[in-house]
């Protein structure tokens, strides 16, 4: 089934028609955003609900309708059920694209918020304005060199020469320094700090001050000991000497790895499963309320 939208997405890259469609879609998007902003709240809510219901209904239909399996690229549908199934399958990437386009619009608002806060602090010379300066400069540099590098690779490098560092220029080295040399390293540094935070959190959590904390401490100790090879070896050898190597002896269940497995499989996994059921049901109910317009969001 060919959707009318396929005419837009099916245009050749770089063609005038595609650019025309893109400009048209952008203008339409801006007009819709402005119209929604100017619309009174009483009118805005029903229109938001209609859009929510329509998109939710599409995904509900996609989920519940029998979908084609092992579909060949030239297969044509037979009968009503298959026609709808094929149509839904074809439409899915297009509908998902709408969400991506909306998010792209919203990212602009996010950048506006960031600049609003930090430029304001900068111009008013408020406390810690130096951090804001670093943020704005970093952001501008990353945008400039990121796009410059991307455009070079996308449009000026048909033979993929820039895949090798030997062919890099100032722009490519600058982007590499900013992205791999700084941003990625700082990400890694933040991630590494979690190790120290785990230590301090564990110290507070494992202080024996209640029955729950004692149980937590005991289970954590069993888990830690079970993955320490030396402890496991000494303890297991001790058990083996008591059982005489008989694999059917009941004392084998007292080995630290067996106890740890029991705690994980008998105590932890069922509890997690129960939590997952609860969370899944909560998400289902929340989604249902949003879809049917029963959820009032934040404002009551």
């Amino acid at each position, binding site marked *: 089934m060919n959707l009318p939208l396929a005419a837009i997405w099916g245009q050749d890259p770089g063609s005038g028609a595609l650019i025309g469609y893109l400009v048209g879609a952008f203008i339409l998007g801006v007009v819709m955003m402005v119209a929604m902003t100017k619309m009174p709240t009483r009118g805005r809510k029903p229109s938001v609900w209609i859009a929510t219901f329509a998109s939710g209904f599409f995904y509900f239909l996609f989920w519940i309708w*029998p979908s084609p399996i092992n579909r060949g690229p030239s*297969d*044509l549908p037979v009968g009503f059920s298959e026609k709808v199934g094929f149509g839904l399958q074809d439409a899915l990437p297009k509908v998902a694209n709408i969400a991506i386009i909306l998010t792209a619009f*919203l*990212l602009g608002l996010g950048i506006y918020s960031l600049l609003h806060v930090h430029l304001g602090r900068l111009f008013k010379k408020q406390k810690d304005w130096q951090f804001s300066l670093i943020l704005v400069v970093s952001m501008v540099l990353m945008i400039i060199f990121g796009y410059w590098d991307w455009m070079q690779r996308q449009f000026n490098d048909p033979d993929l020469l820039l895949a090798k560092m030997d062919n890099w220029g100032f722009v490519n080295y600058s982007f590499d320094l900013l992205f791999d040399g700084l941003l990625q390293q700082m990400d890694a540094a933040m991630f590494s700090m*979690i190790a120290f935070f785990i230590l301090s*959190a564990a110290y507070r959590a494992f202080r024996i001050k209640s029955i729950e904390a004692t149980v937590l401490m005991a289970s954590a100790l069993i888990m830690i000991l079970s993955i320490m090879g030396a402890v496991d070896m000494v303890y297991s050898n001790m058990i083996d000497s008591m059982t005489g190597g008989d694999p059917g002896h009941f004392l084998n269940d007292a080995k630290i790895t067996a106890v740890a497995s029991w705690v994980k499989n008998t105590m932890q996994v069922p509890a997690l499963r129960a939590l997952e059921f609860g969370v899944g049901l909560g998400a289902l*109910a929340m989604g249902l309320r949003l879809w049917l317009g029963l959820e009032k*969001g934040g*404002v009551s």
Partner: protein
Amino acid sequence: MQYLDTAWIGVAVTLVMVAFVLLNIVRARGKEGGLYIRRIPGLNALDDAIGRATEMGRPVLMIPGIGTLNAISVQALSIFAHVTKSAAQFSTPIKICCADAAVYTVAQEVIRDVYQTQGMGDRYNEDFVQFVSDRQFAFAAGVSGIIHREKVAAAFLLGEFYAESLIFAETCNSVGAIQVAGSTHNTQTPFFIAACDYVLIGDEFYAASAYLKREPVLVGSLVGQDWGKMLIAAMCLLGCFIFSIDMTSAPTTKRVTVGEENGTSLVEFQAVDDSDNMEDGSLRKKRSSDTALHHYFHPVVSPGAFQDRNRPQKEEEGS
């Protein structure tokens, strides 16, 4: 959805859960006095935390996680709206840090609406809701900086969190902030339990709005979820019983993988023969894969299930 073999059971059970939720919403709307909800300590602590921030004259920090705009972040914003309502009444400054542009936009709308409905639109400041970064650790670093600089008195960490959860919790602890946290991710809940003062565990996170607002729709939906949980518990018990009975009988059929098409294993049921017997010639015991329940959870894709290759085809372009 694939309806091959037994996969329709999942759809049927889900639709029953949906019916439970809708039925209880109708029930709650018609019932005077409302339905009972048990006490949730983490939610009782919300007002205490806001009161503490008010007394100290320091801001309340709210983080809706780093997920995209979905049911989890909408639920987090719903709780934040309640917190903001209380904070607005005492003129306590608030700060919401977002890692997703869509969540940021919705958060700004929600918080502005809360101030306006409280008749305090003039006190609303655009900087209350801030987009920090959509990169996980850049966001973590940015928010940690805000926690340290603003010396927040209370922090609400509710939403979708990953590795950065502990960074937030421990940073808040280092400035002496009271923390109320909740995540639907089981991997992060233990970190929150270890580091935070109050934690909403599992579906308590979704129960929060019903607990705080007591609206019939929300309370009814919560009771519907409980009915769903009871159904799941009953199914688990029934499953254990059926499985135990099934395992005591001798195997008559076995699942055999007969091929593969496009990454999907094609399976057939075949009768158990002598080749399946034990070394001493006795009939082998039933395996869990021979049971009826295994069949329900592992639907069979048989070779005949795939479509007929003689179906009509599109005409090639130019032909």
